[in-house]
């Protein structure tokens, strides 16, 4: 298997950006992840991950319009690149292949 180099948290963030239909901004991502995982997130952790994934080429970013709300500070909006999507798909495929290969008797305990 080719290494995609996506960690669990990175995968989570990437998926969240997809859910938010791209052009997502760090705080929205944070809220969404918190809502879905019911865990408190650090904004700094989100930032670090976002920038790291940008450096890896999984994301692209652009600066949004300046608005009055944040004292004139612009937002950075992140979108998943096709490489990011492909990496996500690969991860999912690997996982589903593994799931489908799990013998039924092992899975039994999950349903009971």
């Amino acid at each position, binding site marked *: 298997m080719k290494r995609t180099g996506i960690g669990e948290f990175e995968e989570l963030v990437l998926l969240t950006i997809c859910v938010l239909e791209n052009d997502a*901004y*760090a*705080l929205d991502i*944070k*809220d969404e992840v918190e809502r879905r995982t019911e865990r408190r997130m*650090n*904004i*700094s*952790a989100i*930032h*670090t991950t976002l*920038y790291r994934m940008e*450096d890896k080429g999984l994301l692209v970013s652009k*600066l949004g319009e300046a608005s009055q709300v*944040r*004292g004139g*500070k*612009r*937002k*950075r909006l992140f979108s998943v690149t096709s490489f990011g999507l492909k990496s996500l798909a690969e991860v999912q495929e690997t996982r589903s292949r593994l799931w489908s290969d799990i013998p039924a008797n092992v899975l039994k305990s999950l349903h009971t």
Partner: protein
Amino acid sequence: MKQPTPPRLFQRLLSKMFSNTSMEELEGDLLDDFHRNIEKYGTSRAKLYFMLDVLRLIRLVPRSRRNTQKSKTMNNLFLFHIKYSLRSIKKHRVYQSLNIASLTLGFTCFSLIYLFVFNHYQKDSFLSEPERIVRLNVINDGKEGMGIHTGIPPLLKKDFPEIEGYTRLSSYNMDITLEGSQEVFNESVVHAESDFVDIFQIETVKGQRFPEDQTGVLLSESMANKLFTSTDDALGKEITLSAYDRENKKFVVGIVKDLPINSSFSNKIITRLGINERSSQLAGSRAWTAFAAFFTISKATDLNTLADKIPRHLKAHTTIESLVNSDYVFRTFNDIKSNPSISDGYIQAIDGQAMLIFQLVGLVILFLAIANYVNLTTALTLKRTQEVGIKHAMGASKANLISQMMSEALIVGGVSIILSGLLTFSLLSTIESYIGLSMQIAPEFKPWILPVGIGALLILILAASLYPAILFSTVKIDQLLKGKVSNSPKSKLLRSTLLILQFSISTFLIIGSLTFLKQLRFIDKSHNVAQIGDVVIVKGKIGDHRDVIGQKLRAIPEIEQMSFSSVAPGPSDNLRGGMGTKDFEKTMDFYVVDKDFIEVLGLKIVEGENFYDDDRNNKFHVLMNQTAADLAKDGNPVNKEFKLMGAEPSKVIGIVEDFPVGSIKSEVKPSLYMLAEQSSYLPNLVNKIAIKMNSVDPVESIQKIEAVWEEVFPEQPFEAEFMNDRIAKVYTDELKMGQLFGIFTGVAIVISCLGLVGLLTYLVQVKMKEIGIRKVLGASFSTLAKLLTLNIWKVLVLASLISFPLSYYFLEDWLTSFVYRTEISAELFILTVVFFVAIVGITVFWQIRNAVRINPSEVLRNE
């Protein structure tokens, strides 16, 4: 309601971290997050989260700096730097080759000196505890000697628990012959006692650890191989050792391992020292023998307290006053090694003072080279302001510019290091044979010395280039287009200081060399070398045969005059006797001479008469030297009679000037010159013929002398030397040091002049336009020369002011170590100044001629 705000400090930290970078959004994001957190968790927790987030974001700072919005053309330019440096070096090749030349010279001298010094400190590194090896010296009347009454060492061993072992030791050259062979080897033989092999850590290979009695001898492996075919073959064989007409037959009882090459003592032939039991008695017997005594002491023994206990302890065992009244001192192995005056010939010593001077000179030369480099590079830097400006405009940061300069320094330094490495290794063997010392480094140290040395020099170069580099990088963009910032006062001050220092050092070295030369000339003159340089001295046991050989020699027409004696100025190979009399304050050495002695050896009679050539001649006439005359208790001894030898009194008829015998640094001993006829045993002392010749072919004449010698003394080898060689031997050390010093001075002057040439070239180029305009307005060569060199003359004057008093002080100090010494006179200083003015003048003239010759229109046109 007042809106709660995040902690001020962290807010400011945040904006410091990310403002003006591509990650400015972080600030806004964190602020937004803060407000949302207040709603969710309340103010205090929101503040806590904010602070933690800010701290966590610190790790993103490098990323944000990386992606600044500046142009990226000037980033990651390692290869570019190298390429560009090569180009810039090529462009300024005149300066850079001056740089490389002076650095190479400096590095080479430095590494040669330090190899030498390092080698010295590595001596005897195989001894595990050299600090425990000591020799007992005795101080009597303020003079330190190493001959110890043979009874003392065993006594000390018995009564002082600190002393673990001892050996009385004597080492001298002996002739070695093998049975059934004519070949004679002359080798140094150590006579010692059984603890010797333990004290000096000598390993046994075969046979006995130490000879059990007088008939045994130990050989080192190499000596065994030299005398016999193999070490196995050598064991049990008989060899004959002889010295002073006494022969000893000995059997080889053991083979010891060769000492490493860096040992300062030898173990080629070891035999047991013969001690006369009766003369070692401390009580009673008045006749006693003395030998050097080495000890091993236990760790952490205080040598001074131990030595202080000796006289008190001796009182209980002896009545010999001179033993009890003397002071004793322990000299450690390392003391002996670095102080020739207390060395005994067994342990080779190198003058610690000379070592120190060499180290200083090495550092000074290194400093000169580095100062030169800084100076030239700084000047060069200021010429390159335009380049800096353009790079700034292209987005180069300070770090970029500095690393650019550094890579240039690295290239220049690297080339110099490689060149000087090659030079050092090619010169090493020449220098080794020249100073007569092997510079071989102990094998265990070879690997790391190279990288450490090279690394250190590179670091030095980089550190030195930091100043010009920073200067280079801080040029303001706005100044670039205006062109000239070359004359910023800050850099001028530094450059002038460096230049003054350089020149002070150079003048000091020049004065030093001149003083050295003067002192050497003085020594030559005081020996009258010009007149007696080609007098031949023939050495051997002549004794009673002097009439026989004298008659035969007189038949050789080239021989003008000759003298039979037991003494000649020069090394201490003269047979002397000691003589004490109540009329003089000290004992005197006496030598046997004949009536032609004074004339043949070109000595002067300062008072009274020479031996008479006619019937006034009397065998009881004697001469004495000035030192002896000064010791006479009743004033001037000339024409007085003293009872010196036998029953008849001797009459002092004249006083001979002092001439040194032995080292040039040792004091002249009071000496008496007697005629051989005075006593029946005196003729036996005669061991030299001084022959004055008037031949065109000295070699041929010497062959004739040799033929005569072999006829009269078929059993003795023919040994002859010219007087000037003989005298040179007395101050070989000084001569060599003088020559080395001269070489270093030469190097220092060359380095300083290279720097001067570079600076002048730079100065001329900077002022090219000014020169052009002045020429158009009718300035003459001399006005221009004055304009350009005024500063340099100022520097020279200042440098002289600094170095003259210093050099006077140090050289005066050095000269006092000679008994025969010249004076430091004003002419030395004047000569130095003239010399320097000449050198600077030539350099300046050569540079300025180029500048002045230029057609002004060429310089002025390009605007």
